[in-house]
């Protein structure tokens, strides 16, 4: 049974369903909305025992086999671990959303995008094919874009959405290139196959492919220097922030790294990139979080810190690192989502979530207070929460490394983790104290709009409680949930025995120390905030990003003005010069440089000499003409000599046509040339040298075009056939005419169509109504109308202008 596909389809189908039924606020609806993800969660939970025994569910659906494109799904330990988080928290969020958007007309749209996101995210972690992963990856990017800019007329939201999309798309495209390189090398895009390819880590393309994949992962997971988009994304409605930007989507990059871990983690490149980028991001995010007074921004930086932690942990191939990784993922999801949800409740109830304006919330919303405090305990790593276990394991990893082999790495990691943690402790204490317990806000306080109902708080509370007490019963499910995930990351089977209490080890003492120093940071928060404010802005990666984008825009702008803002002459000369280049290339670069004149060497007669001389004279005279009349006459001379030329060389039809057309052309030119007003600016002759250059080049071009016909002739001409068959098959002795109307009548049909179109075009251009009145406007503008005694507009003229037939 295609269970995986059905789960995805269920979620995708739920999206338009909830959009169409236009939900309203009711408890029933909240339950209904939570139902699809809850069902998928339960289904996954039921699969856990089988997965834990090493089974996997694999489903593959062909999409475009030629391109290696397929939807391949694979439910293994890692996939189900992330899948459970996605749908489990998804159910809570869906429930919460019904309260958050009470009375909002666009609630249905939010659900549409939310479910779309949920399905994409689930598909992403279930993917067993790089391209499948990419498809769902882009799905999360687009849905996240729409969610961040949910308030479409708020500039902060749309700007944040744009930055988020551009940064993640940039990474995504780089990742796609990496995927294609990797997939082409292996011959398959299937992740299991790629991971199983022997020697893939040492292939020549691996550094390039891996760097590109890293770009994708780092942008999506907000690693330095791409972390700036995540705080901007907090303009999203709170359910989206809680879900996408803390619990799930930002972990997509981490997930990708975890997926690739078995094959590539042995590389030095892998270790150092992840260790340094992740570690730096961790410290940066942790330290920055203290600076913000917006609850969501504060939490966002704390999230950046955790993402950095996760990336750093994936650098290692150590038991404790794996354990720390999985526990941190779960713990973070279970405490950060409630914190965001609580921030949303506060925002909803008070109309602001700025800590400077808040105080004493513990009295008005005690349940929220309890939730936040419990979540904060987990976040700070206070025993016996899951956060405590996560932090213990991470510090243990550093400690073990330090003890055994890698003193530098272990020490660095130990110190960095402690540093990030103590700042996070400080900022979360700040949040709780300033928001919930102190009596007076810094600035004018906000007032309670309405107290949150219990249903609103319930999802957050549920998650927090799970995260708090979950650690106590961890032995009940550690080998069910965590071990298969670790097995998938490490590539080896794992057996777990977590213990909360190890005794007073150095690690535990460090934990306590972190908590204690965290209070010091809390006490010094105002000082630290001022300190941060003094850091120059131009160092922030947001400013760097914006200036890069600005630079692209300005460059584009300058370039476009340069190429498109110019008059027609340079543009036309480009085409002409391209022709010249072709001629140069053909003649000089690739031939034996001999010119064989196939034409007989007979000396042309006097008439030819005369005609040639006259034509050249006429052409030069046209260029040199001082007045329009002389230009027309010179042009006529050229036309007539061409006619004579045709006469001389046996083309009477051509000669007649050319002559008649010459006559008509002259009439047309005269009619127009004496109407068009000369322009003062036209007298200023510029760029003579350039024009001369193009002209001479074109002269060479024309010469080459004619001569090449006489240098080489490859095959017999088809022309004699026409001479031979003209009378017998075409019933005419004038071969040219027979060709025109019979042999190649199809050409002529196209040609007269051109003429017919020209007629229609001229008709449209010359008889549109306003042409006369426009003319008068111009004259009026130039002061030519009244004093010249121009006749009043006649009725006839008026009729013309109105377009009377």
């Amino acid at each position, binding site marked *: 049974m295609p269970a995986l596909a059905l789960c995805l389809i269920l979620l995708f189908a739920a999206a338009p369903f909830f959009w169409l039924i236009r939900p309203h606020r009711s408890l029933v609806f909240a339950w209904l909305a939570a139902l699809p993800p809850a069902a998928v969660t339960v289904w996954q939970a039921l699969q856990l025992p089988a997965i834990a025994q090493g089974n996997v569910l694999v489903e593959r659906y062909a999409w475009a086999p030629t391109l290696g494109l397929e939807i391949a799904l694979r439910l293994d330990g890692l996939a189900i671990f992330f899948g459970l988080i996605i749908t489990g928290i998804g159910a809570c969020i869906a429930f919460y959303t019904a309260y958050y958007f009470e009375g909002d007309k666009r609630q249905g749209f939010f659900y549409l995008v939310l479910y779309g996101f949920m399905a994409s995210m689930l598909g992403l972690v279930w993917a067993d094919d790089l391209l499948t992963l990419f498809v769902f990856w882009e799905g999360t990017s687009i849905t996240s874009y729409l969610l961040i800019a949910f308030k479409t007329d708020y500039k902060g939201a749309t700007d944040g959405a744009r930055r988020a999309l551009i940064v993640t798309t940039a990474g995504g495209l780089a990742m796609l290139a990496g995927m294609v390189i990797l997939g082409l090398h292996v011959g398959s895009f299937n992740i299991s196959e790629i991971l199983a390819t022997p020697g893939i880590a040492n292939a020549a393309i691996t550094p390039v492919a891996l760097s590109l994949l890293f770009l994708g992962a780092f942008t999506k997971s907000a690693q330095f220097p791409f972390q700036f988009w995540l705080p901007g994304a907090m303009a999203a409605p709170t359910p989206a922030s809680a879900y996408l930007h803390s619990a799930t989507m930002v972990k997509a990059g981490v997930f990708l790294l975890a997926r690739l871990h078995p094959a590539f983690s042995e590389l030095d490149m892998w270790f150092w990139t992840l260790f340094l980028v992740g570690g730096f991001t961790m410290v940066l995010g942790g330290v920055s979080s203290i600076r913000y007074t917006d609850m969501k921004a504060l939490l966002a930086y704390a999230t950046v810190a955790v993402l950095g932690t996760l990336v750093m942990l994936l650098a290692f191939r150590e038991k404790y690192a794996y354990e720390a990784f999985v526990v941190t993922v779960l713990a973070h999801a279970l405490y950060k989502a409630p914190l965001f949800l609580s921030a949303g409740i506060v925002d909803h109830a008070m109309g602001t979530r700025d800590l400077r304006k808040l105080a004493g919330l513990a009295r008005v919303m005690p349940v929220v207070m309890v939730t936040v405090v419990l979540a904060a305990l987990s976040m700070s790593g206070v025993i016996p929460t899951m956060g405590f276990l996560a932090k213990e394991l991470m510090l243990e990893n550093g400690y073990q490394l330090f003890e055994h082999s890698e003193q530098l790495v272990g020490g660095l990691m130990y110190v960095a983790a402690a540093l990030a943690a103590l700042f996070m402790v400080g900022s979360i204490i700040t949040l709780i104290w300033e928001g919930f317990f102190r009596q007076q806000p810094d600035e004018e306080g906000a007032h309670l709009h309405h107290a949150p109902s219990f249903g609103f708080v319930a999802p957050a509370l549920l998650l927090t409680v799970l995260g708090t007490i979950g650690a106590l019963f961890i032995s009940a499910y550690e080998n069910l949930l965590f071990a298969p995930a670790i097995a998938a990351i490490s590539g080896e089977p794992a057996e777990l025995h977590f213990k909360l209490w190890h005794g007073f080890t150095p690690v535990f003492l460090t934990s306590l120390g972190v908590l204690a120093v965290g209070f010091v940071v809390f006490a010094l928060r105002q000082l630290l905030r001022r300190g941060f404010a003094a850091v120059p802005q131009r160092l922030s990666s947001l400013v760097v990003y914006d200036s890069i984008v600005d630079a692209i825009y300005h460059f584009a702008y300058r370039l476009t003005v340069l190429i498109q803002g110019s008059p027609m002459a340079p543009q036309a000369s480009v085409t002409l010069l391209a022709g010249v280049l072709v001629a140069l290339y053909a003649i000089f670069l690739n031939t034996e440089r001999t010119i064989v004149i196939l034409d007989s060497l007979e000396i042309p007669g006097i008439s030819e000499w005369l005609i040639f001389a006259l034509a050249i004279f006429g052409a030069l005279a046209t260029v040199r003409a001082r007045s329009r009349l002389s230009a027309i006459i010179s042009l006529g001379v050229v036309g007539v000599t061409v006619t004579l030329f045709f006469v001389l060389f046996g083309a009477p*039809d051509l000669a007649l046509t050319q002559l*008649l057309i010459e006559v*008509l052309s002259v009439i047309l030119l005269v009619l127009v040339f004496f109407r068009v007003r000369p322009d*003062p600016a036209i007298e200023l002759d510029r760029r003579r040298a350039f024009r001369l250059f193009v002209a001479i080049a074109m002269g060479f071009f024309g010469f080459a075009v004619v001569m090449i016909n006489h240098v080489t002739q490859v095959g017999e001409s088809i022309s004699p056939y026409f001479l031979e068959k003209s009378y017998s098959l075409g*019933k*005419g002795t004038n071969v040219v005419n027979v060709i025109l109307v019979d042999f190649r009548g*199809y050409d*002529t049909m196209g040609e007269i*169509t051109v003429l017919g179109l020209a007629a229609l075009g001229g008709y449209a251009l010359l008889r549109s109504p306003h042409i*006369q009145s426009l003319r008068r406007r111009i004259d009026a503008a130039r002061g030519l109308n009244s004093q010249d005694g121009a006749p009043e507009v006649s009725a006839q003229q008026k009729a013309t202008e109105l377009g009377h037939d």
Partner: protein
Amino acid sequence: MTEIYLRLVDKILTPIIILIAIFLFLRGHDLPGGGFIAGLVAASAIELTILARGAEATRDRYGPWLIPLAGLGLVAAATAALLGLYGGGFFRSIWLEFYVFDDKLKFGTPQLFDLGVMFVVIGMALTYLLRLSEAAEATAVKQAALEERVEESRL
């Protein structure tokens, strides 16, 4: 006065030139001539009318029929091509030959096609000649003043 002479010339010459055009058209298949040339000659004949009688008068006479004439030419050409289907293929020529007083006369779809060519050429050329002459006439007075003004501004 010149106009009167012109009209006289027009009265005599235009029909003659049009006859020449028809002559050129008819002999086109065997000797220099044909639809293009005939059409251009006919257009020149009517240009003479424009010169003699003025664009407005000519427009009233021919104006509305020029685009339909071009359309008719295209229809004739397309019909000639489609008639070929009777002979076995698109654009296949079909000839009818018969003798009148020992003179062989022949009619064929290529001639119908050539006729279409002639109509289109006339329609197209005259559209431009008429429209432009008309505009030239309408603002002739202003034009003189304009030229003068332009000359001044040049200095």
